[in-house]
């Protein structure tokens, strides 16, 4: 069976987007935007299609990178293979002042 994929938008990213829903313990292929396999890894929990998986462990307060750019700060430590979303990431944007 073909492994399900997660796409990493930039080589510096610490998250990848899961293209099909994955289950805890499932091994997936992390691919680049030109569909080359970067590595295989295990999902630490169930993650829905279109959602992000941590491709490396991310420390609390560390910048979450996608497209090689900041998409926010980790609100907690996020282990490799875990779901990265609104429960553990905060926007860095400051309004006013």
């Amino acid at each position, binding site marked *: 069976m073909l492994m399900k994929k997660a796409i990493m938008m930039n080589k510096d990213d610490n998250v990848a987007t899961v293209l099909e829903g994955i289950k805890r313990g499932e091994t997936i292929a992390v691919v680049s935007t030109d569909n080359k396999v970067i590595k295989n890894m295990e999902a630490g929990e169930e993650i829905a299609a279109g959602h992000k998986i941590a491709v490396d462990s991310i420390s609390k307060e560390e910048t979450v990178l996608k*497209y090689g750019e900041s998409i*926010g700060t980790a609100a907690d430590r996020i282990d490799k293979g875990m779901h990265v979303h609104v429960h553990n990431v905060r926007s860095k944007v400051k309004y006013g002042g």
Partner: protein
Amino acid sequence: MVVEGGKMHFNGYKREKGPAGIRNHVIVLPTIGCINELASEVASRVKEAIPLLHNHACIRLGPDLSRARRTLVGIGTNPNIHSVLLVGLGCESITAEELAEEILPYKQVEAVTIKKEGNYSSALEKGVAALREMVWEASEVKREKCDMDDLTVGIKCGGSGSVSAIASNPATGQAADILIENGGRVIFSETAELIGAEHVLAARAVNKTVRHKLLGCVDHMKRKIADYGVDIFGSEPTRGNIAGGLTTIEEKSLGAIIKGGSSPLVGVLEYGERPSSSGLYFMDGTTQASQLFLGMFAAGAQIQVFSFGGGLPARFRGLPSYPCGIPVFPVIKVLGNPGDVEEREYFDIYAGDIIGGKMSVKEVGKSIFDEFISVASGKMTITESRTGYQELLQIYADGLLM
């Protein structure tokens, strides 16, 4: 597609002044919403005439009033319009006479007002007679070979999820790049969805003035949000976006700007302002589809692209006619999400095959560009082929309304 001597063309309607149109409509344009009924009645009595009813009222102040004026003139002067019948009251903040004067250099325009005609029925009678003449004249105009630099395309994304940035937005951006290489103009917008990604787009600005203007739009939006004292989470990103996998406004914005392609940013426009030359433009405007499409149309765009993500779990299904506020402005709808494939029949282009690796961004991008030429040459879009539902045009306002 017409290719001659290596140069691409489309078959459009040449105009006396300004770029060629891709449609040849005769419209009835009310000066203000208070007169919508008369405009609708006049149009209903003449075959093929289209009433463009809208929400302008004398409640607008300063910049919003200027924006409404620019929008009404922009609707009347858009290349897709053959001629215009203005219908007015006589007491409104933007008069039919003022609008007629600004539209006249571009095309045939007539104005009827209740004040001048004395009453509703006289205005109706005079309007119908004038409109009939316009429709006859429009019916005699033929399509001719036109240069690609006549074409302006507006781009918006909707129903964004994480896959938007992988399929529909990059494919749309690719089509934008090809159009610009061929001399065309592309406008994209949604100021709130630059927040967190403004530095990426600013780095592509052709000069300091454009860069400052772009960053100024974002700063202004951020200050307004701060003044409001609310958290935009839940609106940017929306609940649907979040269900589709988007976590923060930064992530949404970084994915959203991909729809504009990779060309240098040559200018920043006001809502409804016309671009002055070829290339990629950013319009300072809203994320609300109907209001933004109107701003694009008023800026002279002849085609609009709507790049749809459709968050998988959110299942934000594209309604068949959504959004179809402007029947004189063809919308090419692009669907990027394999999870929404059931709705494919409501879309002109399916980009979901990029996700599975069956098609490349380049291939789908080229098919979107080819669709620009087909639609510009007369092919109906899916939304155009549906009738019976039309929204009131919404002119954007961002200030105090009385």
